[in-house]
């Protein structure tokens, strides 16, 4: 099925002020293949694709499209030549229909400038039919009513309606759950079958194994390795991080590390979760698995008082607590590290120190200097940062200049100032590169060993299984199964989906 070379980039060098983002990178794609582009955050993957699409212009190197030398000055030029890039952040208008989104900026017109809505409808329908019956929405559906996976299909449909021969997908599964991922994989298979070439940017080894025909690894702006097939996972990871990462997940807790139940919930429930009985023990990492919408996030939000329980009783260290606001939850000793760090965790324009101090300041008296609260002084905060090996040019730079992993460390340090008893990690490694992930896992284990009860929620099932001492499976708002350390992906997935099926058929 793999055919001719569609595009080839040779010796691409791109320099930003003070940094060489790409250094003589060569990359190509043939028709009918999926070429995985792999690398840590900041390695240069996205920059390379932006050079391809004309967002950036390279200082050195040439791009050939079907043998012709091209030089795109603007993304529109590459679009016209059949190169489409689907970014992580979709460029869709939620209040407009699927058809309007697909034809955005190039709406067909009839005489007198009237919109040719019929043509938009029929052409959209035509493109959607390429998905078979998997899309479950029509040209008239509002994009805002679609879930993330469906919105991604709209983005893909947009590319197809432009007759894109090259489709670049930038971490397309970042916001998808397992079922949605499977659907995406099928779509990618279809696109490959149609003879298109797919550049697939990802962190996840499972997806590379499932989809890729070839793998290129980029590290520090250079090609670290180019494989003509899909090599062992270890080889890819080694090329990415430049060394053997060794033990990826930390050792599980030993029996004597696990202590008393710190937090108990009896009969907890609200609109989205029901009959929650839960014990979180000191020294233990409890992982939560389940499909999207199963109630894992809702449980975290209930425990942290964002969307509180309506029923049931919660105790922390044996004392009943009322978790009706985040502030009350925090006062009770519960900390939550949100999954969407930028939206819910960080003041991007404030310094690393200010981001660390915010909780200590929120709980100390109103009067007094911000850098010296009864809970934590600035020196102590710096020590927390140091202890977690938080890397920044200085702790006075704006936190937006830090990598995702270092931002996560700052949020952990923020909570340590309140000495929390329960730490809830929501998607702890979303958008974080492989090398840093191991550091975050080690950090979570360390917090548990120091006596905290740790709760981990992640859509990445191998991650949940790897870090958790026990795994609770949720489905339809209830906890439906419990597994100890070492459960297999298959049995957990089975539990997560079976309960769902039973409910549907009964």
């Amino acid at each position, binding site marked *: 099925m793999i055919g001719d070379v569609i595009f080839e980039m040779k010796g691409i060098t791109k320099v930003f*002020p*003070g*940094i060489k983002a790409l250094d003589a990178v060569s990359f190509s794609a043939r028709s009918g293949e999926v070429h995985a582009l792999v690398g840590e955050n*900041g390695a240069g993957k996205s920059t390379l694709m932006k050079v391809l699409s004309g967002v950036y212009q390279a200082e050195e190197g040439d791009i050939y499209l079907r043998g012709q030398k091209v030089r795109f000055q603007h993304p529109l030029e590459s679009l016209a030549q059949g190169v489409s890039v689907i970014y992580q952040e979709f460029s869709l208008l939620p209040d407009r229909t699927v058809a309007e989104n697909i034809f955005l900026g190039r709406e067909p017109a009839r005489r007198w400038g009237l919109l040719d809505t019929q043509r938009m409808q029929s052409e959209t329908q035509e493109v959607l039919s390429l998905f078979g019956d998997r899309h479950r929405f029509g040209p008239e559906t509002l994009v805002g009513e679609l879930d993330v996976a469906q919105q991604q299909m709209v983005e893909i449909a947009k590319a197809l309606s432009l007759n894109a021969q090259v489709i670049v997908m930038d971490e397309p599964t970042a916001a998808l759950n397992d079922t949605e991922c499977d659907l995406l994989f099928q779509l990618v298979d279809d696109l490959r079958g149609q003879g298109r070439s797919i550049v697939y940017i990802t962190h996840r080894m499972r997806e590379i194994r499932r989809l890729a025909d070839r793998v290129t690894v980029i590290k520090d702006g250079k090609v670290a390795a180019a494989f003509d097939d899909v090599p062992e996972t270890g080889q890819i990871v080694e090329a990415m991080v430049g060394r053997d990462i060794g033990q990826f997940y930390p050792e599980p807790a030993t029996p004597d590390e696990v202590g008393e139940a710190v937090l108990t919930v009896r009969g907890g429930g609200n609109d989205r979760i029901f009959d929650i009985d839960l014990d979180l023990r000191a020294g233990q990492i409890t992982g939560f698995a389940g499909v999207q919408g199963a109630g894992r996030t809702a449980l975290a939000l209930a425990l*942290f008082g*964002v969307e509180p329980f309506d029923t049931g009783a919660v105790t922390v260290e044996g004392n009943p607590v009322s978790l009706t606001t*985040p*502030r009350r939850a*925090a*006062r009770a000793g519960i900390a*939550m590290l*949100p999954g969407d760090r930028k*939206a*819910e*965790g*960080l*003041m*991007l*324009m*404030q310094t690393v120190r*200010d981001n660390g*101090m*915010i*909780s200590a*300041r*929120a*709980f*100390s*008296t*109103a*009067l*007094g*200097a*911000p850098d010296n*609260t009864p809970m934590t002084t600035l020196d102590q905060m710096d020590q927390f940062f140091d202890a977690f090996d938080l890397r*920044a*040019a200085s702790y006075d*730079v*704006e936190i937006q*200049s830090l990598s995702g992993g270092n931002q996560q460390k700052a949020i952990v340090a*923020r909570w340590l100032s*309140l000495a929390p008893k329960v730490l809830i990690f929501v998607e702890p490694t979303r958008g974080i590169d492989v090398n840093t992930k191991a550091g975050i896992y080690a950090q979570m284990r360390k917090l548990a060993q120091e006596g905290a009860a740790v709760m981990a929620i992640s859509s990445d099932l191998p991650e949940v299984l790897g870090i958790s001492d026990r795994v609770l499976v949720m489905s339809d708002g209830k906890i439906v199964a419990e597994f100890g350390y070492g459960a297999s992906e298959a049995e957990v997935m089975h539990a997560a989906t079976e309960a769902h099926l039973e409910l549907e058929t009964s």
Partner: protein
Amino acid sequence: MKVPKPKNMTALAPFLLLLAAVVIYVGVAIATGQTQYLTAENLLGLLGRSIALGITAIGQTFAILIASIDLSVANLISVSAVLASSIMSGDPSMMLPAVAAVLAVGVVVGLINGLVITQFEVNPLIATLGMALILQGLLSATFNNFAGEVPEAFQVFAYGQVGGISISLIFLIGLTIAAWVFLRFTKPGSNIYSVGGNPDAAKLAGMRTTRVVIMAHVICSVCATIAGLYLASRLRSGAPWIGRDGVYDLESIAVVVIGGTALSGGRGGVWGTLMGVMIFSLIDSIFNIAGVDAFAKQILRGVIIVAAVAVYAMRSRRIEA
């Protein structure tokens, strides 16, 4: 990796603007041969003419730092000026009660603004516009001309001098220093930047964000009432139109923005605002010296505001890239 330093750059921008304005001012004065405008006295007097705007804008900075805005300041200025001069009615012994009453009105208006915005989740633009209309309505129903009289002792606020420098100017600079210390060195001040930077994250860090928003609005309104007291002192009486005639609502927002405070909140400060006020006074003086037509003046001011904001927007875009 190299880290950009956007903070220093944005802090520098209003200063450069101010420098440019000063250079143009001096240039125009020399070019038109009106060197009498270049005396130290005259330069100090520049800021002296914008005391009311300065005080209001310091307060507006707090509202904008938490990503809110206050359109009710102009009418609140009128209310406090009229209220102060009516209560005083020329009687020096009523000065303290009048000031206390006016400041209390400021606290109440700020509380209502803050509560409506946080509890009913009304967009601040609408909430404070509504407050502005209510205040205007109350004023129009009660007064239609200069009301009351300010005793001579109170006129010291506007006309008094200490060591050759006017008391009002010292007050404005003192207020700026106090606001800076509050924002830079105290916990509530730091909370303002946090809430403005990302209200959701602040809430999830355990902060009582509604209190911070309300506090910022109270500070904003109290500053506006102080500006009203100053105007009453300067005009020797309060009139129900002085706030609106001074366009203190829009001008205070304009100088805050020119001073480098982000309309999206979380970034900026009062020194920039003070520079914004000086830039505005300088522009006015430049036009006066150059004899620019009043309408052309208005147009040029509009151009300068938009250009300044565009420069900041371009700068922040470059940082993101």
